[in-house]
C-alpha cells in the first residue's frame, strides 16, 4: 500500500482546507514543500519546491509545517488497522505498508474482493492509496507505484517487464543512469547478462531485481507488539497479613522493575489489583511524582495504601501493572543515599497519595521582567525546574493584584498614605525600578503604562512593594515583603 499523500492528508483529515494545500518542511534556511494535496499539484506545484517560489506561483496556497513524528505515528496506526487483513503487516518506508496476505485472502473472498475492501475503507477515511498485490514484496511495491492492481501468481516477470526501472526500489540516480543507457524497462535490464550490470552498477541493483522477480527471498517483518508491563502472583493459600502482601509485592516489583529497566522506562502510575477468595477485587493505584523503577523505593511508597486494603477472607492473587510508563534512560547509580531532589519527589508522591498528585503546586520561574509573569504555578509532579530564580531584583514574598493608594506624590513615595484601612508612614524607601510593559503582549493590568517600583519600609513595620504609574499618575501597593 502506498499512501502517496500521507502527510498532507493526515493534516487535512483534522482540518479540511479547500483549495491548494501543502505541508512544508524546513531544510536549513529554506522551507520546502514536502507534501501537497491534489489541488496544489494540479496548479503546477511540486514536491521539493521552495515555499517562497511556490507562493509566487500560487499565492493562495495554504501551508502547515510538517510533523514527521506524527506522520510516523499515523502510519503505525494504519499498520495496526491493517492487521484486520493479516497479522503480518509492517511498515514500508515513510508512506507505505507491506502486508503478507498469504493464506489470508480467502477470508475476504479472494484477492480482488480484499483489494476492493481496502480501497473502500481507506477512501472512506479520506486517504488516497495505491495498492499492488503480487508474489513478491518487490513486485507489489512496483505495482503500487506504477501500475496498481493484482498480478496473478506466477506472472510476476511478465507483469513487471514493461515497468520503468524506477519501479525496482533503486535510487533515482541509478534509475536515471540506466535510462540514459536506453535501459528503460525492467525487461530491458533483465535481458542483460547479470555480470555486466553488476560491474557497472552496485550489487544492490541485482538484488532488487531478483527480489522483485522472486529469485531471491525477502521477508515481511510485521510490527512488533507494544511491551506489556504487568506481573501477577497466585498464592497456594490465601494470605491476609500486610507483611505477606508486602513480601509478595516486593517480589513482583522486582520482576516489574527489571522489565522496565531493560526497556529504559520508568513507571508513573502502578496499579495493584488484589483478588480475594470471595471473587471481589480491590485496586490500589500509586501515582508517582516522577518516573521510577527502583523496587525498594516504590515498595516503601506502597506501605500506606497496602495497609488500607481490606483482606476479607484472604487474598488469592495479586496483580501489578504499570499503567503509565515514561522513558527513563539508564543512569549511573551513586553510592547509597537518595540523590538530591529524590527525597522531595518521594514526599510529593506520599502527599499525592493523600490529597491527589494534581493538587500539589510548585512555583517555577519564568523569564520576564513583569512581576506578575515572573513565575508560574505548575503541578509539582510534572515538569522539572529548568530556569534559575533571579536574585538580583528582590521580589516580595506575597504578590497580589495592585491596590490603589490615594496620594499626590510624584517622584518619590508618599510619606503618609492609607492602605487597607491602615494609616501608614514611610520610614525608608528605595527605588525606583522602572518596568515597562511587554509591548509584544497585550496585558490589561498594564494599561496604565510603565511602573516605577519602590520598596517602602513603613514605621508601622510593614514592608511594602509599591509602584507609581507616571503615565497615569497613581500609587499602588503590589506586594508585601516579609
Amino acid at each position: 500500500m502506498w499512501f502517496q499523500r500521507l502527510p498532507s492528508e493526515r493534516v487535512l483529515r483534522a482540518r479540511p482546507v479547500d483549495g491548494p494545500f501543502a505541508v512544508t518542511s524546513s531544510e536549513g534556511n529554506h522551507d520546502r514543500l514536502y507534501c501537497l494535496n491534489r489541488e496544489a499539484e494540479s496548479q503546477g506545484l511540486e514536491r521539493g519546491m521552495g515555499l517562497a517560489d511556490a507562493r509566487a506561483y500560487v499565492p493562495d496556497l495554504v501551508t502547515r509545517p510538517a510533523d514527521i513524528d506524527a506522520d510516523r505515528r499515523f502510519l503505525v496506526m494504519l499498520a495496526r488497522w491493517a492487521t484486520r487483513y493479516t497479522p503480518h503487516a509492517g511498515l514500508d518506508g515513510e508512506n507505505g505498508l507491506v502486508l503478507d496476505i498469504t493464506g489470508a485472502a480467502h477470508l475476504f473472498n479472494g484477492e480482488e474482493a480484499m483489494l476492493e475492501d481496502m480501497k473502500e475503507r481507506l477512501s472512506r477515511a479520506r486517504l488516497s492509496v495505491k495498492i499492488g498485490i503480487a508474489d513478491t514484496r518487490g513486485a507489489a511495491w512496483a505495482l503500487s507505484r506504477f501500475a496498481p492492481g493484482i498480478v496473478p501468481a506466477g506472472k510476476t516477470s511478465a507483469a513487471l517487464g514493461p515497468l520503468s526501472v524506477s519501479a525496482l526500489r533503486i535510487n533515482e540516480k541509478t534509475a536515471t543512469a540506466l535510462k540514459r543507457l536506453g535501459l528503460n524497462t525492467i525487461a530491458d535490464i533483465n535481458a542483460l547478462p547479470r555480470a555486466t550490470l553488476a560491474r557497472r552498477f552496485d550489487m544492490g541493483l541485482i538484488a532488487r531485481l531478483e527480489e522483485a522477480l522472486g529469485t531471491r527471498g525477502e521477508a515481511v517483518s510485521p510490527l512488533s507488539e507494544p511491551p506489556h508491563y504487568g506481573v501477577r502472583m497466585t498464592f497456594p493459600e490465601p494470605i491476609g497479613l500486610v507483611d505477606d502482601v508486602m513480601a509478595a509485592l516486593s517480589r513482583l516489583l522486582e520482576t516489574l522493575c527489571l522489565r522496565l529497566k531493560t526497556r529504559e522506562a520508568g513507571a508513573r502510575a502502578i496499579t495493584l489489583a488484589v483478588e480475594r477468595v470471595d471473587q471481589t477485587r480491590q485496586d490500589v493505584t500509586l501515582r508517582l511524582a516522577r518516573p521510577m523503577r527502583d523496587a525498594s523505593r516504590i515498595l516503601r511508597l506502597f506501605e500506606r495504601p497496602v495497609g488500607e486494603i481490606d483482606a476479607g477472607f484472604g487474598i488469592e492473587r495479586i496483580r501489578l501493572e504499570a499503567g503509565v510508563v515514561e522513558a527513563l534512560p539508564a543512569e549511573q547509580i551513586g553510592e547509597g543515599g537518595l540523590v538530591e531532589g529524590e527525597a522531595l519527589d518521594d514526599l510529593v508522591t506520599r502527599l499525592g497519595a493523600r490529597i491527589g498528585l494534581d493538587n500539589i503546586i510548585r512555583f517555577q520561574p519564568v523569564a520576564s521582567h513583569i512581576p506578575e509573569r515572573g513565575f508560574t504555578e505548575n503541578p509539582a509532579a510534572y515538569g522539572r525546574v529548568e530556569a534559575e530564580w533571579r536574585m538580583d531584583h528582590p521580589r516580595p514574598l506575597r504578590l497580589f493584584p495592585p491596590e490603589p493608594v490615594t496620594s499626590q506624590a510624584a517622584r518619590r513615595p508618599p510619606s503618609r498614605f492609607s492602605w487597607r484601612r491602615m494609616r501608614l508612614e514611610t520610614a525608608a524607601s528605595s527605588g525606583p525600578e522602572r518596568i515597562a510593559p511587554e509591548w509584544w503582549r497585550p496585558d490589561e493590568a498594564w494599561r496604565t503604562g510603565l511602573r516605577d517600583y519602590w520598596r517602602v519600609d513603613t514605621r508601622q513595620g510593614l514592608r511594602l512593594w509599591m509602584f507609581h504609574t507616571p503615565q497615569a499618575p497613581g500609587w499602588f501597593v503590589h506586594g508585601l515583603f516579609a
Partner: protein
Amino acid sequence: MDYAELCVTSNFTFLTGASHPEEFVARAAELGLSAIAITDRNSLAGVVRAFRELKEIRRKLKARADEITLTVKQHIDPSSRMPVGETVSIPLAPAARLPRLIVGCRLVLADSPVDFVALPKDKPAYQKLVRLLSLGKQRTQKGECLLYLSDMLEWADGSLLIALPESMEQKAEATDHIAQAHRRFPGYVFTGAAPRYDGSDAAWFKTLAALSHATGAPMVATGDVLMHHASRRQLADVLTCMRHHITIDAIGHLALPNAERRLKPADEMAHIFRDHPAAIRRTLEIAARLTFDLTELSYNYPAELAHGEAPQARLARLTWEGLKWRNPGGIPDRHRELAEKELALVDELGFAAYFLTVHDIIVYARSRGILCQGRGSAANSILCYALGITDVSPDMIGMVFERFVSRHRGEPPDIDVDFEHERREEVIQHIYEKYGRDHAGLCATVIHFRSRAAIREVGKVMGLSNDVTAALSGQIWGISSKGADPERLKEVGLDLSDRRLTQTVRIIGEIIGFPRHLSQHVGGFVITHDRLDELCPIENAAMEDRTVIEWDKDDIDALQILKVDVLSLGMLTCLQKSFDLLSRHYNHPLTIAAVPQEDEATYSMLQRADAIGVFQVESRAQMNFLPRMKPATFYDLVIEVAIVRPGPIQGGMVQPYIQRRQKKAKVEYPSPDLEGVLKKTLGVPLFQEQAMLIAVVAAGFSPEDADRLRRSLASFRQMGTIGEFEEQFVNGMLQNGYELDFAQRCFAQIRGFADYGFPESHAAAFAMLTYVSAWLKCHYPAAFACALLNSQPMGFYAPAQIVRDAREHQVEVRPISVNHSAWDCTLERRADGAYALRLGFRQIKGLKKEDADWLVTGRGNGYQTPEDVWLRAGLMPAVLERLAEADAFADAGLSRRDALWRVKAIRAPKPLPLFSDPIDGEHISEPDVILPAMNLGEQVVEDYVATRMSLRAHPMELLRPKMPGLTLHSALAVTQQRRVSVAGLVITRQRPGTASGVIFLTLEDETGVSNIVVWNKVYERFRRTVMGGRLLKVTGRLQREGVVVHVIAETIEDCSWRLSELGHPMDDAIGITDPKSDDTPRRPKLQPRAHHPREQAKKLFPSRDFH
C-alpha cells in the same frame, strides 16, 4: 544645566544599537546637549555618518538662520535609493547651539569584565586608537575584533578611557583592570556610571563611587545610550532577538526592562545623578579636553614620486609623450590647448599624483596583458586620453573637464577603471603589494536591511507564520524596498486590527535601512601616503587576501579622501580574448584604440539589430531601439547607450528624441541659451551633465548649488535631499521665462537620473566598447563568438544563443570531442581557409578545467576509447562519464551510449599499476551488449543535459509535427499582421521596472526568436504558465514596426510537458534559463522527481489511477 553624552551605541554596532547615528545627532541637537560621542563596539563605522549629519544641520541652519525648524529625514534606503519613513520637523530653539561630535569607540576586551569607552583627545591619539582597532580586527575573521587588556594598555595613550563595569560580580578583577589602566594612563581614566533604573541605582552609584575612590579614576555620568528615542525600545528588543536567534515570546530577561537607555536631556540626567553632581560636571570637562575633530584627518595622497621626479612634472612629461604617441602626425592645436589648460588646473588643485596612480595601475595592467579602460567624470579628459587611461579621443565627444574637477569644490576627480573580470584580482593584489596593506584598502559597503530581509527576519522574530510573512512580502518579483503598505496588506487579506501584525509592520518600516553588516565595495580602493591604519580601522574581508576599511564610499567622500575604483567588466575579458585570437589565427594584432573607427558595415549591422553579444546593446529594449535609432556614427552609440535607461525613460525623453531623430518632429530649443547645452542631443536632455547645465543656465543655480545637486545624484543615498532642490529649480526656471511644464519635466528627468542615468563620459566609455565589440562581431564572427563563449559567464545571453547566432552568421560550429577540443573553445582552420568554432570542454556542465588540461596533455595521437583517457590522462570515472554524456567520444567512433556503457565499467579512480597495460595485463572479457540506439529526441535531450545546447536539432523541430498551426519565427517578419500562434523555448523572461508591469518573453524555435509582450491583465490570467513554463505556445496579435516584431500575447499555453515526448528521462534540462535573463523565481534545483514516480506512472500507464 549642561551635559555631554559620552557613551552612545548606534546601529553600527550591528543588531544592538537601535538608532541611526544621524538620529542621535539630530536628537542631541533637539535636546540641546553640549556634546555627543558615538561609541560603537570596537568600531568607528558610524561616526562619519554622525559627522556628516552634523555638517548638514550646520549648513542648513546657516542657510536659513531665520527658520527655527530643523528638518530631519528619517533615512534613505540605500539599496533602492528611496526615502523611507516620513520627514519630521523638529523645532529648534532660535539660539540653539549644536552639539559637538566626539569620536570614539567602546573597547570590548576579551579578557576583561570591564568595557572601556575610548575617546581620543587629539589626532595622534586617534591614530593610535585606529591602529589598536586594526590590530584587533586583523587578528580574527571578518566583522569581529579580538582585543585584550594588554593591547589597550599598549595603544590607548592619549585617549580618555571611561571604564564601564558591568556588574559587581567580578569586582576584584574589575577594580584591578581599572587600576591597571589608571596606573598606565594617569589622569586619563574615569569610572563610568550608567543609571540602570532597576531600583538599585543609588546603591550602584555608591558602589561605583567607592570603586572610583579605590582606583583613583574619577566617576563620570554616562547614559550608556542605545536609542535616540524611547519608541525604539521595541526595535531594540527585536534586534536582540535577531542576535540570539529567538522569537520575541522567548526573549525573557534579554528584553530591555524599560526604555531608559535613551538619549536624555541635561536636567533629567542631573536629577538621576543628584547625589553625584560632579559626575555630570565631569562629562563637560572631559568633552572640553577632547579636541579631536574628523576634519583634522589631513589626508595625504601618495606622492607617486618616480626617480625623484615631482608628480606634476612627471604628469606633464607623460602627457606630452602620450599626445605624441596618439598623434603621430603632430599634436593638433586643439589638443595642445586643452592639455595645457587641464595641466594647469590639475597643478592648481594638486591632483597630479592621483592621475599618476591611475596611470601606473594601467601601465601595470597593460604590462601583464590585462585589458582595461577608464571611465568616470575625470576620465574623459585629454589627460586621460594622453595617459592611455581611456581611448575616447577628445574629438569624439565634447569634453568639459573643468566641470568635473572644479576649482571651487576642491573635490577629488573620479576615475573608475574597468579590468577584465577574470584578471582583476591580479590588479588588486598588485595594488596591495605596491602600496602595502598599511596604505591601501578596499572601501566597505554597508549592507542594509531591505524590505525582503526585513520582513523575513522581523516576521520570524515576531513569530508570524510563514504564510503571513510570505503574504507580507507580497508577490516577489523584483526588489521592492518600500515598507509594507497598509492598503496592500488589506488586499492580500491580512487583518490589520491584529495587534501583533500592526506592530510587526511598524517595526519592519523602522528597520528598513538599518545597517546589518559591512561588506566590501566592488573595487573602491583608498590609497594613502601615511599609514592607512591610522586613518581608519582595517579589517579582513571574507575573501582571502583582501583587507577592507570600515568606511563606505559616502563616508570617504565626506572626509574628502581619494578613491580609485578598480572594477571588473566581462566585456573586456571578451575583447582581450578576441584580440588574442585575432593575432594568433588571423595575424591581425589589435587594440581598442587600433580598431578602425566609423566602419560602415559595423553600423549597418547594428541598424539591423543584429547585436547578440555586443556590449550594452544586446538587451531586448536596446535591440528594439537600434533599428529606430539607426546609429551611424560613434556619437549615436553614445546616445544609444545612455538613452535606454531608466533615467531618460522615466523623464519621458525617449519619444521626443526619437521623433526628432527620425525627422518626424522639429528640433527646437526651449531657449537660445539652452541651444548650446542641448544641441548635440537635438534639444532633449539625455545626460547627467546636461541636466546640471540646465540647472545653471536656465534655473540660475550657482555652480556650488549645481554641484550639490550633482552629488545628490551621484551618491544615490542622498536622494532624499533632491526634493529640496525641486522648488529652487522650478522657480528659477519660471523666473527665467521657461514654461512650467518644461521645468517640471526637466526636474522629473533629474530625479530619474538619481535612479539610473549616465553621465556623458560614462556613456562614451561604454560606447567605445560597444563599437569595438560590434566591429569584431561584424568582421570576425567566429573569433568573437569564441571569445564570448570563453568569457562566460557574462553578458545577457546563454551559450546556446551565442552558438545559434554564430551559426546564423555562417560560422561552422563543431561539437566537443576528446580528440580536438581544449578547455576553451577554439578556432580550427577549415579547408576553405575560413575558421570553424570548436566547442571546448568548458561547455560541459560539471567538468573542471584541471581535468580538461590533463586530457589535452595526455592526448598524444588521440584517444580511441574511454579506457585510453582513463589510463593516459588519469581522469576519474565520474569525469569520463561527463565526457561520455557530452558525446565527446563520437570522434573516436563510439556512440554516446556505448561510451557511457564502457565508462560505467570503470570503477576504480585510478588504474592499478600492474594492469595499466591492457594488452599485457589481465583483461576482463565480458559479453558484448547491444544497447538500444538513441533516437534524435533523446540525443537532443542528452545534449542539453550535458551542455545546455544542442548542435543536432532544436527541440521545437522535433515537436513541430505534433503542434500544428504554428507560425515559424523566421516567418514573422513577412507574415501579415494578424493573429498568429508561435511556440518555442523560453530564453528570456523579464519584467523591467520601467515598463509598468509588462513582461517581455523571448521564445526560441529552430528558425529564430520571437518577442512576446505580455500585458499585465494577460499575465494575471496565465501567471503560472508565464512564470514556470519552459516551452510556451503563445497566440496573439502580430505587431510590426520597421524590423521590430512583437506578438502581443492573448492566450498562453504551457507545452513544457511535450518535452517529455522526446523520450528521455531528463527532459527538464531543456529550457533552463539564465538567472540574468530571467526574472522569475528559480525552479527547485533539486529534482523532486525522486519523490514523484507518479509522474512517470502517468506517462506509462495513463488513467489507471483509481482514487
